[in-house]
């Protein structure tokens, strides 16, 4: 990184001299660029972090190691087993795993700002916002707002955040030391939370009297760190190997930053499909279109429809919400969305997938599965099994590549 920066300065100086000396505006001789930074971060599906010497042993959670630093300093900490989540935005670190001292973000009245994220299963993460530099591979995002999840010395989560549900705020609850949200959007909430009229319950101001919903400017919201990199910032691609049916103990792949910015992240034959304002697209199955479907590496299965529409038996109480067919079953669905470069044109892709008996899979010693699934009435949630054997590109909103402007998926 340092070398690259120095080389860039030299090139700029040469360009400057050339421009001064000749009075000629041509820059054709100045195509020499600094060496590209390392844009490839290792990711792994394994047994997860250890708590009291025991691996959590969850299935289908994709992890990486993230380095965070006190902004502008070399006081840093590497945190392993942070879950890679294309279904959310922003970095969230479980407070117990944080050894750095970070400064809580405040509003203009000096009141601490807290963040909330909820999940459909009625769990949530709550905690103060603080800024940190985020380093992955050779890339650095500077002074990024992140969430510190569940510190004991901070105000309790208000009802607008808990929604009556249960916290997922410890390493045991979460099955990870944190969550790296590298989804389709720049911010976790976006313009709705920057508006002072009725912002949704993502951000809270927390004076001593208690926490209440507040608006927060776009720049002070949790950010997808990728779009804050100085380069390779228009998106990313997650590359995971195919694995055998029945699963694998672990699976190692790459998270490559940028789309078409270096030799290792070209789109190739991948088809780009845009999404709606919520990040959703349509999945058609047996002739029926389900328009609130999404891709989410943070979902640890293919969660779609129900037993009545799929013919797949549910597992019952031993694995609530999962499918347990008597024999492995194959399906095909069609994902479609607008071409990011020509929104009137729909781009459709056939997706073949299989569903095996989840209890059989969970009772094995494997941690990575490409054929675990469960119910999700009226919706297709393409979870981590979708990523095996694919290069999945995530085009970030308002960032452009050869595929057009994000938000889009390409695979």
């Amino acid at each position, binding site marked *: 990184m340092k070398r690259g920066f120095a080389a860039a300065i030299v090139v700029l100086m040469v360009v400057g001299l050339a421009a001064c000396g000749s009075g000629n505006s041509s820059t054709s001789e100045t195509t020499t660029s600094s060496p590209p930074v390392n844009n490839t971060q290792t990711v792994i599906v394994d047994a*997860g972090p250890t708590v009291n010497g025991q691996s*959590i042993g*969850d299935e289908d*959670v994709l992890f990486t190691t993230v380095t965070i630093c006190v902004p502008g300093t070399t006081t840093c900490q590497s945190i392993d087993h942070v879950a890679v989540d294309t*279904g*959310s935005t922003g970095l969230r670190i479980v407070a117990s795993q944080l050894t750095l001292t970070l400064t809580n973000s405040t509003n203009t009245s000096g009141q601490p700002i807290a963040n*909330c*994220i*909820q*999940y*459909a*299963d*009625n*769990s949530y993460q709550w905690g103060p916002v603080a800024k940190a530099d985020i380093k992955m591979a050779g890339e650095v995002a500077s002074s990024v707002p992140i969430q510190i999840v569940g510190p004991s010395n901070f105000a309790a989560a208000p*009802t*607008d955040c*808990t*929604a*009556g*549900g*249960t916290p*997922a705020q410890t390493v*045991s*609850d*979460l*099955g*990870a030391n944190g969550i790296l949200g590298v989804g389709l*959007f720049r911010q*976790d*909430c976006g313009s*709705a939370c920057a508006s002072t*009229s*009725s*912002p*949704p*319950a*993502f951000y809270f101001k927390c004076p001593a009297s208690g926490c209440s919903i507040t608006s927060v400017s776009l720049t002070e919201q949790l950010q997808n760190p990728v779009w804050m990199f100085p380069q390779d910032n228009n998106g990313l691609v997650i590359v995971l190997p195919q694995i055998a049916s029945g699963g694998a103990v672990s699976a190692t792949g790459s998270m490559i930053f940028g789309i078409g910015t270096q030799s290792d992240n070209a789109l190739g034959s991948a088809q780009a499909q845009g999404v709606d304002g*919520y*990040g*959703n697209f349509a999945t058609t199955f047996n002739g029926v279109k389900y328009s*609130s479907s*999404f891709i*989410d590496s*943070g*979902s*640890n*299965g293919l*969660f779609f429809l*129900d037993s009545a529409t799929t013919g797949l038996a549910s597992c019952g*109480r031993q694995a*609530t*919400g999962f499918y347990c067919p008597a024999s492995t079953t194959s399906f095909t669905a069609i994902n479609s969305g607008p071409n990011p470069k020509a929104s009137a044109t729909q781009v459709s892709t056939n997706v073949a997938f299989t569903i095996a008996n989840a209890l059989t899979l969970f009772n094995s010693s494997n941690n990575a599965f490409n054929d675990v699934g*469960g*119910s*999700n*009435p*009226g*919706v297709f*949630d393409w*979870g981590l099994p979708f990523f095996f054997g694919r290069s999945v590109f995530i085009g970030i909103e308002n960032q452009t590549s050869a595929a057009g402007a994000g938000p889009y998926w390409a695979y």
Partner: protein
Amino acid sequence: MMKRPVTVLSALFAAALSGFASLGGSEESVVSDQVKFQASRKVVPEHGYRVHEISRDDGTLIKEFVSFDGKVFGVSWKGPTLPDLSQLLGSSFTEFQNSVQPKAGRRKAAVVHNSDLVVESTGHSRAFQGRAYLNSMLPDGVTQEVVQ
């Protein structure tokens, strides 16, 4: 039965009633949901039941499905965040939580299909949607498909 929305002024009701509304509760309690959610409300008559639509400026829409004998037999929600499900599901909330059995690291939809209670909660941050109903309380001639 006419399908005419009747808009009710929030302020009229905000002061009038208290108590919790919820699945299986009484129609009066719907008003306390409206107050709780700081929302506006309209009532849409349907064939065999009424729907109270509670909407909030942040884009949240909650529907409470009420039989003519004044019982909330179904609820649905849609919005950027989850509504307070403990309030919305009322006395069924504990059964919902026990049935969902959250497990470490498993993130997914919450789907409960018990003999009486059905809850389907799906979506993700910025775009949640869900519904719940009690089979035993569906009015005669009304099917669960209406709860959307």
